[in-house]
């Protein structure tokens, strides 16, 4: 039986007096059934294994599908990166799939670039326009004048297109705007860049040292799982951060360092390890070169010396060094990920790599492991396209950034400004990366964009970059498309499947389809012999007799186990020039860079200003998720963290100090103004810097939820300092002052 609510309330009113008479009679008196267990019935009729795309870690997911809808997403227990657990973003994937603001139809620009006026067209018309534009660029400027910016798994297909088209200019902001300095530094020191997912054995570490990394807020699933696992086993944490991060809250030692002085601290730590004999003498004797030079270099880098620079207590520097040293070899110095801070970032990462070596942590359990890829064959091609006739154009004239080991996205932007590079870029394909928030110095970026003859954006949502495109192509989300298999390196080699849980909504199409159609329109169909993504993967598997059925049903194929560290029998080998760990870098010396890291002071900001620092929220992947209504519920907008005592004495606010949660406008050293943003007054940050989570302050009106929320740190990053070693754009060199936001009546 069922009662309508209205009837029910009527009965309730009539019976209110008598209900109090006999407790326990209530249920029977109401004449209703017993109390059932509420079941929301969100389990799927079908469960589809795939891997996540809310960030770039690539966790295995299980999509529950019921009556054609994805009801929920859970972690795939068989997947080595998720191990059955997901971060909030992974769980919140349905918020992307069912985002009402998704791109629904291909769009052609009908106005000036940046005015965001578009016309919906058919795929045939949109791709026809792209093909026509590309052919024109090719005729006038050659195929290399096309650049691809790509971030995310579907980029694979567009990379194939670039190869067939004949351009080497493929870049991602994830290098020069993110982890690049780390890659260069570890390659210089150990002969191997780290890549992603990083080869870190956090779970078995006895001491974990984070330098500016805020793991836990930075939600790389496997790493956070292992961090908790290590803490559960009694591991100690050392956290170096101007902000009392979540990780700092769990640390044995928190070092609230003055921003920009990390190298001084790292040299002092090396000093203590060497001076007190806490380093791994046997390991270094067997595997490293340049120890004597290092000893001489850090001889005077005492904690007392570093204390005057870093603002840290010398005793804290010494005690933390001793803990780090006493915990070796399972004493892990985390290399960080977003490492473009001050333009001397490769040297800072070198100082970290040197510590890794002193602790004998590379190649050991609880340290940097050996990883490998699953042996997956390539798709058998009839013939490879000819290589491009001109070299990549991401470096300016004059041979700068000699040790960049990936393409510089910032360099591709610069090469779009006429005469900056060996030749000019004239067309961009932008796949899944919103360059407007990813690149520093926005006016310079937009100026470059205005030089283009063609800009094509492929995205799921109307990101800001789409507003500047000539053609916008709506891609299906990761839950609606098949893709190539995930095949990154891991300690247990494996591949993971990407398969559609539901068909594409609206008129969106998978990346593979878009590329194949486009190739057909520019006479390159012969380079795309596969029928679709699934056939592509199946055929690759079939070459070595690997099972599609297992991959498809369980989500993964595991490769054979491999020895990952010395304890498991993995030999320590180094692909540096000398074949050793290069504490002293002859390669850097030959290029006229410091062969050992040197601390040099950073420029300070104008009086009354605060250094702008940025980071992550565990609920968001930069600007990619800020329109996800599910994820935005607990974290709807960013705030600017300001030391509460500094706020109480803020110049210009004496009469009425800033109040908690009040909206402010940040004005940077160049007069760039932010959108209004809430201020978070807190003890959890030094008084010389402020902090914001990256990704807000979106200017794309089409993202109706995110538009106008919070402020963009990228907009305030009008300055950057280039790392001369590898071309990274150091972005923590901007300073802001506060203004009260004008409240409209």
């Amino acid at each position: 039986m069922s009662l309508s609510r209205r009837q029910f309330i009527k009965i309730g009113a009539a019976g209110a007096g008598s209900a109090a008479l006999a407790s326990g009679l209530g249920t029977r008196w109401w004449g209703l059934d017993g109390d059932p267990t509420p079941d929301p019935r969100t389990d799927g009729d079908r469960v589809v294994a795939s891997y996540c795309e809310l960030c770039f870690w690539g966790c295995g997911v299980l999509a529950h599908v019921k009556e054609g809808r994805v009801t929920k997403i859970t972690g795939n227990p068989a997947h080595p990166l998720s191990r059955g657990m997901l971060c909030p973003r992974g769980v919140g994937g349905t918020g992307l799939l069912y985002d009402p603001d998704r791109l629904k139809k291909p769009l052609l620009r009908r106005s000036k670039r940046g005015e965001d006026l578009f016309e919906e067209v058919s795929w045939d018309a949109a791709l026809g326009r792209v093909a026509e534009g590309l052919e024109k660029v090719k005729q006038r400027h050659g195929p290399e004048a096309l650049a691809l910016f790509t971030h995310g798994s579907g980029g694979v297909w567009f990379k194939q297109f670039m190869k067939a088209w004949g351009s080497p200019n493929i870049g991602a902001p994830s290098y020069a705007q993110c982890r690049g300095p780390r890659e260069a530094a570890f390659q210089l020191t150990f002969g191997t860049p780290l890549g992603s997912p990083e080869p870190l054995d956090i779970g078995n570490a006895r001491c974990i040292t984070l330098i500016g990394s805020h793991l836990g807020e930075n939600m790389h699933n496997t790493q956070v799982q292992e961090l908790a696992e290590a803490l559960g086993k009694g591991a100690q944490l050392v956290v170096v951060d101007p902000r009392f991060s979540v990780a700092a809250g769990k640390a044995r030692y928190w070092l609230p360092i003055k921003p920009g002085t990390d190298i001084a601290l790292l040299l002092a730590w090396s000093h203590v390890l060497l001076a007190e004999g806490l380093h791994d003498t046997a390991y270094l004797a067997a595997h490293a070169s340049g120890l004597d030079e290092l000893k001489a270099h850090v001889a005077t880098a005492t904690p007392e010396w570093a204390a005057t620079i870093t603002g840290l207590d010398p005793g804290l520097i010494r005690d933390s060094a001793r803990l780090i040293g006493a915990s070796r070899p399972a004493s892990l110095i985390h290399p960080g990920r977003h490492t473009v801070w001050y333009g001397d970032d490769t040297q800072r990462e070198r100082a970290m790599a040197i510590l890794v070596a002193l602790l004998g942590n590379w190649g050991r359990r609880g340290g940097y492991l050996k990883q490998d890829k699953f042996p997956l064959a390539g798709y058998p091609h009839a013939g490879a396209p000819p290589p491009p006739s001109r070299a990549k154009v991401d470096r300016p004239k004059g041979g700068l950034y000699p040790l960049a080991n990936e393409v510089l996205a910032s360099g591709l932007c610069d090469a779009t400004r006429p005469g900056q590079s060996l030749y000019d870029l004239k067309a961009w394909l932008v796949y899944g990366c919103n360059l407007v928030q990813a690149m520093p110095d926005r006016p310079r970026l937009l100026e470059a964009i205005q030089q283009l003859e063609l800009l094509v954006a492929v995205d799921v949502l109307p990101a800001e970059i789409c507003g500047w495109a000539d053609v916008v192509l709506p891609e299906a989300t990761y839950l609606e498309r098949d893709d190539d298999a995930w095949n990154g390196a891991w300690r247990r080699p494996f591949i993971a499947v990407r398969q559609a849980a539901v068909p594409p909504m609206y008129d969106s199409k998978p990346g593979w389809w878009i590329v194949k159609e486009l190739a057909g329109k520019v006479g390159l169909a012969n380079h795309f012999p596969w029928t679709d993504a699934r056939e592509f993967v199946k055929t690759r598997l079939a070459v070595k007799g690997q099972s599609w059925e297992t991959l498809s049903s369980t989500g993964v194929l595991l490769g054979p186990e491999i020895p990952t560290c010395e304890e498991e029998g993995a030999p320590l080998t180094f692909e540096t020039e000398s074949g050793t760990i290069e504490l002293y870098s002859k390669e850097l010396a030959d290029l006229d860079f410091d062969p050992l890291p040197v601390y040099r002071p950073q420029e300070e900001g104008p009086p009354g200003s605060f250094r702008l620092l940025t980071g992550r929220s565990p609920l968001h992947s930069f600007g990619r998720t800020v329109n996800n209504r599910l994820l935005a519920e607990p974290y709807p907008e960013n705030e600017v963290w300001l030391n509460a005592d500094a706020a109480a004495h803020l110049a210009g606010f004496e009469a009425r100090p800033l109040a908690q949660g009040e909206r402010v406008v940040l004005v940077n050293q160049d007069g760039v103004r932010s959108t209004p943003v809430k201020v978070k007054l807190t003890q959890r940050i030094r008084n010389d810097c402020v902090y914001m989570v990256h990704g807000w302050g979106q200017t794309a009106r089409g993202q109706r939820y995110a538009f106008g929320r919070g402020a963009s740190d990228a907009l305030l990053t009008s300055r950057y300092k280039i790392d001369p070693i590898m071309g990274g754009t150091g972005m923590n060199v901007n300073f802001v002052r506060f203004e009260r936001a004008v409240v409209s009546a």
Partner: protein
Amino acid sequence: MTRRYAMAVDTLRCVGCNACVISCKTENDLPSGGFRDWIVQEVHGQFPSLTLQIRSERCNHCAETPCVAACPTGASHVAAGGTVLVNRRKCTGCKACMVACPYGARWVHPDGYVDKCTFCLHRVERAQQPACVETCPTRSLTFGDLADPASPVARLVAHRPHLVLQPEAGTRPQVFFLT
């Protein structure tokens, strides 16, 4: 022996990522604005001498239930394992239980009834863990039968220092925060 469902929340492991919150929302198909669990970050001290406690909070499924006592219709009730549930067909949305609950664990669903954490009893009955427990990347959440001394939750509560929220309310909460 009667079961006593309980949860241990390890504040030393938890990073406050909200995976428990989002998984609860999708598992239980909660509307916008409705939460059955949430994250609290509690900061004490002055820079640089600070402490931070992060708690994944939800209904405490108390052994003494002022919410059930306050319910005029019998909608709020104690179900299997001491789990406190609301029978939405009996609930008039009068909010007496919300006033009685010291923890703010209850909210009004847009369909008119009071909603709260169920310990995912529908999953527990199928021998699954609650959704928040299953997804938690830091394995901070342990659910089980406190009456079974061999259960992981009973072991944690027996061996780890812990606190409950507002013990002075006399509600005997069954969610334990390991410290």
